[in-house]
């Protein structure tokens, strides 16, 4: 049991009106599984991730992470929850320019009040897991785009999260590198037992997912033939055509 969204509705102010970004969304993601989220641009994919990441509080419905209901928690409690149980991989790697790859990971221990030196072993182990053992001393500007994104993935796993949220990790990468990053995320999901939500535009990346959900105008639905697994999933051409990079 790791991520549970139940009847979640999220609106943003839109002039005098409100824009519904998520419309009564219910989603359950068990640990050790990968759920892919697809849908056209502006459909609410990032909003779904933001709610799961506790970065926004929904207007209605409940979000629970690792058994903890997040609605009603204070800002500080949410920050602590994010720090300890949620790993986030951003669309851009979002690494800090002054830190080496190793330090990007040690930083996660530092913000959790632990000694960065003590976290060195785990950081090196994770860098090795994403194939960057020999790049530990490099700063972001000395790494390729794909390497940066892999550092971002390793960073997200640093504090042993039970929930891993990944927002379009491949948008800055070419197809081949993108596929490698998705493979890596799939492997780490199995190995480390995270409940993983992967937002992606690229439907060829969806093969590895345990489940694919389609977001359309804030509403969630499994793809027409989907039964909770990726088997038998067929892309819907009408939807992909409207997507932006």
């Amino acid at each position, binding site marked *: 049991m790791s991520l549970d969204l139940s009847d979640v509705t999220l609106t943003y102010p839109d002039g005098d009106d409100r824009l519904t970004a998520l419309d009564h969304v219910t989603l359950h993601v068990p640990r050790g599984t990968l759920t892919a989220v697809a849908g056209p641009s502006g459909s609410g994919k990032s909003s779904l*991730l933001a709610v799961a990441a506790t970065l926004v509080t929904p207007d209605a419905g409940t979000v629970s992470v690792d058994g903890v209901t997040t609605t009603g928690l204070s800002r500080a409690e949410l*920050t602590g929850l994010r720090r300890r149980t949620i790993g986030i991989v*951003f669309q851009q790697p979002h690494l800090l*320019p*002054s*830190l080496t790859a190793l330090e990007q990971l040690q*930083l996660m221990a530092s913000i959790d009040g632990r000694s960065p030196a003590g976290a060195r072993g785990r950081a090196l182990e994770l860098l090795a897991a994403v194939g960057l053992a020999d790049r530990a001393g490099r*700063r972001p500007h000395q790494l390729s785009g794909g390497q940066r994104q892999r550092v971002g993935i390793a960073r997200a796993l640093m504090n042993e999260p039970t929930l891993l949220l990944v927002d379009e990790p491949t948008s800055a990468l070419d197809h081949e590198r993108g596929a490698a990053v998705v493979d890596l995320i799939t492997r780490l999901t199995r190995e480390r037992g995270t409940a993983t939500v992967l937002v992606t535009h690229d439907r060829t990346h969806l093969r590895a997912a345990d489940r694919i959900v389609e977001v359309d105008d804030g509403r969630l639905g499994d793809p027409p033939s989907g039964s909770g697994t990726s088997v038998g999933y067929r892309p819907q051409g009408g939807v992909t055509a409207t997507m932006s990079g």
Partner: protein
Amino acid sequence: MFVAWRDLRFAKGRFALMGAVITLITLLVGLLSALSAGLARQNISAITGLPADRIAFAAPGPGRSPSYGDSTVTARQWRRWAEVPGVTRAEPLGITSTKATAGDRSAPVSAFGVRAGSRLAPDGGAIHDRTAVLSAAAAAGLGGLAPGDTFALAGRRLTVAAVAGDASFSHTPVIWTALSTWASVAPPGAAGTAAGPDAGATATVIALDTTAGADVAAADRAIGTRTVTKDGSLSAIGSYASENGSLQLMRGFLFAISALVVGAFFTVWTIQRAGDIAVLKALGASTAHLLKDALGQAAALLVVGTLLGTGIAAALGALVVPDTVPFLLTPATVLAPAAVMILLGALGAALSVRRITSVDPLTALGSAR
């Protein structure tokens, strides 16, 4: 401070530039402070060194403040002051600026006339009609006079009874003389013209030693004087009020400029880092953690810059500034402005890194950044 230290090293150039600005402003503030203190000492040390707590001036005209330059008090006034309950001592003090000559050396001096044996002068017991006590600077300025030597004060021959103290008034060294000597060298009008039973016995001000019980205001009204505290009387030294005022104003501006520059630097720096801050918050860094990091970074920069500037100011003062320049290097004149620099800089930095609190971690998601 995990990220803060690495940012300091990574953006060396930027921080070095900022540190250099802080160093230079501190250097300027340090030099200005030492100079102000040195000038002030030359101006007022004779007054601040008086063993008295209040100074009584002749009551100035309506709407005017007392002034050492145009006050004249009479013997009758200081005798009456001595009888006021709560006043333990009332000593006349005559002040005038004049010229002293010894051999072919002459120097501008301040002649301070006191009663024979007065406590106001160092070695006051040695002062009588034909002797004087010279401050060290006065003796040095006249070619190194020693006790027993003779010199002329505005044409009057006097013997040096002692060389003591470093009293200085209005930028000239003090020579302590008997009240009668002072009266003969002071310009007419300042001395010896009072009418009535006290004709011939006047001074400039009365130095008072009072206890808490003394009703100074009532005595002032009865006797026709205006009494202020010793420190309050400093503004009655004409040159001091204007000189000190403008120096303090400059120093205040430098403090303000420094706080603004530091604030502006950290504002720009924080805005540039807004994206990183959003990411850190999304990753779970608490706002308190981020603020501590940013303030620690600012404090490190301020302390290093300020200490460097203070060190250079002290070194310049000790090694480069010639002795003729009044330059007072004490912990108070050097370290106090450094502390103010750090405090105001930290305030400026605190106001600018405050915007960390308002960075929304949500902006780290998506491609918008």
